[in-house]
């Protein structure tokens, strides 16, 4: 029954990765930022959700919801206090802005990680599953929670697709990733579009964070790994390509699951890393990268 187990577990973890990675890609596509505080944003959502659900006694559902809100706030702060000031700074030459934003978000991520560890705990935490119970799928025991997580991820991804392709605001967002100047000429304030992008990102990363907490658990020590995973997936799929991120998330998710089950759990992140190196050298634009 191992193959089936791998198939199911792999699917769940990949879906989760996909959610996080799509958020990461979105921000890169629209805002041009590779947010190295990504793990931190997910962490805030997860930890706050856990704390509010358990310690503050608000219960799992409310805790989860508030956790997502916290994730959104963390994303806002990242944009308003780190990314935007650097982008607007007159003291930093244009060619170096990207590097400064990268370093700035990296630092901010470290601050979140250490701050959260200090305020709460650096032990791994798990959130209580939203749905209890286990079901039997062709001989494999699968927690309902796991199925729900995969389901939620896909629903959210679907909603995002609808938003971007069927609503006017979503199309404006898409247009911003293609041609920001064109939007300005049509009377759109780019600052509002960026805020929208970061809001969406915060929600996506927040959901990914709380779901991860209830599935595999989250620890402040893993924050860097979370960012690295999202980063790898996005580069594999192609920077700026949402469908690429989706594909790559499944490739990485399954690679990791297979490694964990068949080789050794400690070597989990290795194949993805090797694949990443290969891709960067052979085809830097990733599977479906544009330009």
């Amino acid at each position, binding site marked *: 029954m191992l193959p089936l187990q791998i198939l199911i577990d792999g699917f769940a973890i990949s879906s989760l990765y996909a959610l996080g990675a799509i958020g990461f890609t979105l921000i890169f596509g629209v805002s041009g930022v590779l947010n190295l505080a990504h793990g931190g944003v997910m962490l805030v959502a997860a930890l706050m959700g856990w704390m509010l659900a358990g310690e503050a006694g608000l219960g799992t559902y409310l805790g989860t919801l508030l956790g997502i809100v916290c994730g959104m706030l963390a994303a806002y702060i990242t944009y308003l206090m780190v990314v935007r000031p650097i982008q607007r700074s007159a*003291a930093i030459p244009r060619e170096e802005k990207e590097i400064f934003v990268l370093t*700035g978000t990296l*630092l901010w991520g470290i601050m979140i990680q250490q701050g959260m560890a*200090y305020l709460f705990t650096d032990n791994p935490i798990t959130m209580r599953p939203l749905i209890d119970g286990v079901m039997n799928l062709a001989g494999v025991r699968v927690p309902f929670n796991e199925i729900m997580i995969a389901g939620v991820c896909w629903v959210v991804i679907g909603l995002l697709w609808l938003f971007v392709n069927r609503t006017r605001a979503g199309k404006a967002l898409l247009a911003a990733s293609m041609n920001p100047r064109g939007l300005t000429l049509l009377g759109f304030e780019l600052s509002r579009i960026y805020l929208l992008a970061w809001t969406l990102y915060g929600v996506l990363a927040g959901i990914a964070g709380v779901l991860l907490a209830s599935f595999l658990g989250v620890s402040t020590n893993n924050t860097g790994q979370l960012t690295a995973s999202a*980063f790898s997936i996005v580069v594999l799929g192609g920077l700026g390509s949402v469908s690429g991120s989706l594909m790559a998330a499944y490739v990485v998710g399954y690679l990791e699951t297979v490694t964990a089950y068949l080789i050794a759990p400690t070597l989990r992140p290795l194949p993805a890393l090797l694949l*990443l*190196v290969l891709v*960067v050298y052979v085809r830097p634009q990733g599977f479906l990268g544009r330009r």
Partner: protein
Amino acid sequence: MTALLRSRVVWAAALLAILATTLPWWLSGYILGVLTVAYYFGVFAMSWDLLFGFAGEVNFGPTFLIGLGAYSAAMLNAHWSAPIPVCVIAGGVVALIGGLLLAVPALRLRGPYFGLVTLVAVLLLQNAIVIFAGLTGGEIGMMVPDVISVDANHNYWIALAFLIVCAILLFGLSRSAIGLILQASGQDTVGAQALGFNVTKHKLAAFCISAVFSGVAGAMLVFYQGTASVSTVVDLGVGVQIIIAAVLGGRRTILGAVLGSVFLIVAGEFLRPLGQINTFVVAAVALAVILFFPDGLLGNLLRVRERE
């Protein structure tokens, strides 16, 4: 004008160096220990500045090169009982080879991809060390039988001497004709090519120099501390600290990186009693510097002089 400037900076540096030599006579062994680490860190940061400030390439994983140097020296010493000088040189050589393997393909990549590859290199090294735990001691790290000295003063002076030698070499390089070519290559690649310079060749050379100094310094650090571990020499966080130190001190100044390192390490130590929050504070300060003083300490000082 620049000659004058240079001598002001150089004189100030010389004065500081002399001052530093006298410190063991009135500081405790504990503080000397902190400074010793800071001095090795200073070499890490200077090497980084040469690559970034001059060749214009951002290395997000300086600890890849440092780690290679540190671990190869450690393994040589622990498993084959080679004497320290041999290990240190070997560390430099291994870092150089690693640097070449990384740089030759990586320099062909544009934009964020180069930085990304350097980041991934660190992660790969980390994983490799964990996998071959038999040789490397894995996540716990390994002890080395030999150390440079057990006397705090001796260690301090050796570190200081090492720092001064490296500083002279790296600073001298940055001010030389080659340094000029490197600067041009980093800031205006097309312009430099139009002047007849093989930019790739020069950037590769900068990478190699950075690798050698990083590797040797990493090896020296191992023989000071007596241990080699992933969290000290192959860590992404440490890499970020190196970048911060160089930026704090002032990009493209080389000597500023030393100031930044000393500040960072001393401040980190100073804040240690605060517990876990000290990393937070250091990161916060660094972020503030990036936002409000991107030119760093020495950078701002030099800017002011230029206006005159």
